[in-house]
């Protein structure tokens, strides 16, 4: 059996990749995907704990996260499309009307 720590390390690596992608990337789609990566990193640790402790709550949490992520993806992609139509760019640095 794979020990719990392996899962957790993988989860941490996935999350860190997500953070790095979020911070580094300029393309709004990539940023979006980085967020999904972070969420899934967290999901992984949830299911790992759930399996380890034999508690269903973690899996329930994961379902919730997936549902919310799906909803978020729908709204987020709609926003991205709307932004692209008006600004004709996917570069977040150019979407800066609200900036100081």
């Amino acid at each position, binding site marked *: 059996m794979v020990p719990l720590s392996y899962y957790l390390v993988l989860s941490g690596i996935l999350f860190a990749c997500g953070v790095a992608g*979020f*911070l580094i990337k300029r393309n709004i789609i990539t940023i979006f995907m980085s967020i999904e990566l972070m969420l899934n990193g967290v999901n992984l640790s949830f299911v790992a704990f759930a399996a380890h402790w034999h508690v269903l709550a973690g899996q329930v949490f994961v379902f919730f996260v997936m549902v919310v992520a799906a909803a978020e993806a729908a709204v987020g992609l709609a926003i991205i499309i709307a932004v692209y139509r008006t600004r004709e760019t996917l570069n*977040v640095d150019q979407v*800066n009307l*609200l*900036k*100081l």
Partner: protein
Amino acid sequence: MTANLNLWMIPILPLAGAAINGFWGKKSSRSAVSTVALFFSGAAFAWALWVALHFSSLQLPYQEYLTHWIRSGNFSADFAFYLDQLSLVMLLVVTGVGFLIHIYSVGYMWDDPGYYRFFSYLNLFMFFMLTLVLANNYLLMFIGWEGVGLASYLLIGFWFTKDSAASAGKKAFIVNRIGDFGFLIGLFLLIQHFGSLNFDQVFGKVQPLGIETTAGLLTAIGILLMVGACGKSAQIPLYVWLPDAMEGPTPVSALIHAATMVTAGVYMVARSHAIFERAPIALTVVAIIGTLTALFAATIGITQTDIKKVLAYSTVSQLGYMFMACGVGAFSAGIFHLMTHAFFKGLLFLGAGSVIHAVGGEQDMRKMGGLKTYIPMTFIVMLIATCAIAGIPPLAGFWSKDEILWKAWEANPIYWVIGAITAFITSFYMFRLLFMTFWGDYKGIKVDDHGQAHATHGHGDHGHGEPHESPMVMLVPLMILAFLSLVGGLVGIHNGFQHFLEPVFGAEFPKAIAEPGNTEWLLMGISVLFSITGLIVAYVLYVSKPYLPQKIADSLNGFYETVLNKYYVDELYAKIFVKPLVDGSTSILWQGVDRKVIDDSVNNAAEGARHVSDEVRHMQSGNLRSYAGWISAGAAVVIAYMIWLGLGR
């Protein structure tokens, strides 16, 4: 018998009058305002008379407890009243003279736009003054003491649009603060050592103490109380506010700055006689200050040309007599002079008011003269008052002044010599006032246009050509006071007044004088001689040879100038106290502490916050990624910390 006299009603009545006039007077008619003011002050007087009628059947001192005020541990100060022979005399003087002056003011102030305000203040003054004289403890007395100071301030600055009046009010208030400071410290000493401020308890605890031959606790308390009395009763070195206080309306000068308030200091010293009798050093200080003030102020009085200023310095000088009396232990003589002085000095001021009224607001005596044919009634009462203050028998001033001088002789002939010289000077400057005002030819302007004076003292319904007599409402109080000045001294025959006050002051200090001996007759003769000499000298200088005074003044050039300028005391105080205070306040307190420390610390704190924020606000760039970066960095720090904790375990 312990009948309930409801003494508390006596001060409360004028307070009610003050409140009614103060709140609703503005919209009421003049006659309504004067009805209220006269009713409440008259009711207080009637009540006082009623108390006097029942006085002989009372168990003295009669004390009345109204309600408690401060209770803290063993210390207590209550709203309670104290009536004995001394407070009865004060009560009758304050309510009686006060009521007469209220009546007079109806005529005098009739055309003033601040009519209701004037009567409200005047009633307020009565309230505080009656609290002062009826209090059964020093603290309540102090409330009255401060309250009369407030009323005095309000009334000196009554015409507050006039700069000199406003600053005279402030001067009076500030100079009185200095005295009150001494008074307060005296009270603190009393609390510390006797644990009480009640007259009964304090004097009860003082009684067993022996006479202090060297300066000690009682001397310190006595001198501190004396400082307070100096402020209120205008003695050297705090007398400077009283002459300036003449900026107030004349009835105020009569009531507050001659007859009643300024005698509060004398009353307080007399009330504290148990302390003073055991502190001969403090008593000597009182006597010396009184004697010097009497002489000093009298000499200034000679040179003044403003009719009210002469009377003001005369008041200071007469108060000096009262302090001299207290200082030689003759408290009853001091109170006697206080009473007669209230009559004749009140009369002099009201008479001066009538003169000022007659000549349309002029106060300079050089512009008067010959008024005796124009205003004969005023002339007669002024003549009576002048004779009374000059000490011509058998008028009031003679009896009381003679009593004081006799006691002064017994204590130390030097006091007597200075007192007698002062009596001569008093007689001289008072007759000078009388002659300059009423004899000779009228030197004023006989035109209708009186400008400011006209507006102030207004004579709206008739022209102001000739000097004219005042209305009856002003003359009647003058006549009553004149009558009192005539006969008021007779209560002092055979030491009648002294015997009346004996239960308060006791007969032991100094030893009772049984019968007037030859010395007393001799001294009496000398002082009468001095008074008459003063009269004659004044007559020669100001009636028969009116060119002489100028000559004398010229020959005494430097000295005359000095006296005319009141010995430059005001200028001296301005140099020694006021200027360093103003400069120090400006450079150290204002520019130094206030601007550099307080303002700068506040401003710098604000500036600092702005600078820091200026730097920090760049963090809030609106760049989402940088926010995310900060969040992850923070999270990383937290996680690192947790790991470090975990590893450390």
